[in-house]
């Protein structure tokens, strides 16, 4: 177990370094000029050139990257070229918003997906299973902004049960903020449930038809005893990897929902800073997102190994 941990922990900084280099090169190739974006089209070329010099944009690429990396590692993430605010607060603030939405959606997702998956698995090939599978499949395939739009039409504009924008006024209490997040979270849950439920259903069916369950039946155990003692645990453990994949999507893939519900998340920030070529913000967002993405991947693997005794200790092959 520890060997796996160390190997993966070492891989994270290496990959992040690769990502930051890739982002640096990409922004070099991207069109548009951040100095022009800052000063607007009516500023003279001379002032634009002057600003570019002051931002250090005309230094050689490797030099700029080295400067950025040195400062970044020491916690100085620099100030955003365009918004002139410290990048750290900006990115971490936006990330906080995304995490809140993702966590809220995840908390709704886990019980619903596990419940439906188990239900479908235990009634293998009966009507309940078919309905759950098909509905889960359909919702899982529909883009979140499509379901989002429909939710908006019905619940925000027509019934006015929930606010249309996911962004509460600053300083609002957690409950008010969550109330603003209901619609985006629901559209995310509808999207992710199918995928997780399918995994849980498959492992439930495998458990029900496994030799150890048949042996338990042969020993005279009743169906409910078998389900409670053997099926439950063996079917929910494999769901962790499916939940992990969805968690990664919830963090990084929210751009469409953020745009639709006007929510200042990290996805929208990434899109805007890439378009504006605001390098410090873009670098910070890409690295932070990458780090979070890989940590979740690792967390999923570790929990999977801890929960499943067979993988708990690295049994030599």
């Amino acid at each position, binding site marked *: 177990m520890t060997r796996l941990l160390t190997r993966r922990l070492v891989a994270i900084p290496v990959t992040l370094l690769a990502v930051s280099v890739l*982002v640096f090169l990409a922004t070099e190739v991207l069109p548009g000029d951040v100095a022009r974006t800052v000063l607007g089209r009516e500023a003279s070329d001379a002032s634009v050139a002057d600003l570019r010099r002051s931002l250090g944009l005309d230094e050689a690429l490797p030099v700029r990257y080295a400067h950025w990396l040195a400062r970044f590692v020491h916690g100085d993430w620099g100030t955003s070229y365009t918004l002139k605010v410290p990048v750290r607060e900006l990115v971490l603030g936006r990330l906080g918003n995304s995490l809140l939405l993702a966590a809220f959606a995840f908390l709704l997702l886990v019980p619903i997906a596990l419940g439906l998956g188990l239900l479908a698995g235990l009634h293998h090939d009966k009507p309940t299973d078919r309905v759950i599978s098909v509905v889960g499949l359909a919702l899982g395939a529909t883009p979140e902004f499509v379901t989002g739009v429909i939710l908006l039409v019905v619940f925000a504009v027509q019934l006015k049960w929930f606010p249309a924008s996911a962004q509460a006024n600053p300083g609002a209490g957690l409950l008010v903020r969550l109330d603003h997040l209901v619609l985006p979270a629901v559209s995310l849950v509808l999207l992710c449930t199918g995928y997780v439920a399918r995994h849980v259903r498959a492992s439930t*069916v495998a458990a029900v038809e496994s030799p150890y369950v048949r042996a338990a039946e042969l020993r005279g155990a009743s169906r409910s005893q078998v389900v409670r003692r053997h099926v439950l645990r063996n079917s929910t453990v494999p769901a962790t990897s499916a939940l992990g994949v969805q968690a990664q999507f919830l963090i990084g893939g929210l751009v469409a929902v953020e745009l639709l519900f006007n929510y200042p998340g990290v996805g929208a920030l*990434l899109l805007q800073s890439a378009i504006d070529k605001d390098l410090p913000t873009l670098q910070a967002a890409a690295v932070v997102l990458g780090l979070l993405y890989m940590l979740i991947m690792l967390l999923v693997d570790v929990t999977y190994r801890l929960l499943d005794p067979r993988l708990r200790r690295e049994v030599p092959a």
Partner: protein
Amino acid sequence: MTAVQVRPVAVATDVSLPPTARRRRPIALVVGGMLVGGWVLVATFWPYLAPYDPQRQHPTLRFAAPSGAHWLGTDQFGRDTFSRMLAGARPVLEIAPLATGLALIAGTLIGLLAGTCGRWVDEVIMRVLDAVLVFPAIIASILFVAMLGRSVTVLVIVIGLAFVPIVTRSVRAATLVERQKPYVEAALLRGEPLWSLMLREILPNISRTVLVEATSRLGDAIFAAATLSFIGLGQQPGSPDWGASVSDNRAYLQNAPWTVLSPALAIASLVIGVALVADSLRARLDAR
């Protein structure tokens, strides 16, 4: 790729169900097939089906409600929503298969290589894949849009590349299983060249995985194409692309909801159709 995280709708390496003797009733396949078939027909013959020219603007007829003349009303430029919905089928059904094809070919080859060679080749490929998975897809999309301009090719490349890591992972997993088997080792001991091991020995036996990946990624590709145009990285403006239509018209949710609901429901129906077909195919393959 995070942000737009291109989301795997179904993981190919589902725990394959024990082959139950009873066959699944084919409703899902029939319904799915009709949906997909319907849209493919629309995509090919929309010029003859569409009552109006989807680009033709009628300034005096803006936001007309659904009526006899315009079954699904008109949008902000007075263009007929129903014709635009029909015309919108073609770009999606051009991009998704091409992107899936690109992802499949690249993913399968890389997956085979990683699985067959093993050792440092496998390690390097997997590390590169991790980096690609972590690299934000948005930056890649803007990069390609900037370099190649807004077009179908850009979307095909961006979506295709975004799926390569996912396809590679499942192909590599299937290859590793075959690689241990004696028939591959026998070929190795005979001195068969690497490409022959990959293409002649292992590839035919992982075709099930590749086929399942194909159907799952097709659904994802449509999903991703719609999302990319929704956030403004899609094709040139004016294209009747569904994702772009939803994005442009979502302001008129209240007073002209037909302009946004028709493309949205079109996307949903096509993607659901593909998902149903993929699911029944996968079940059939498991049963064999």
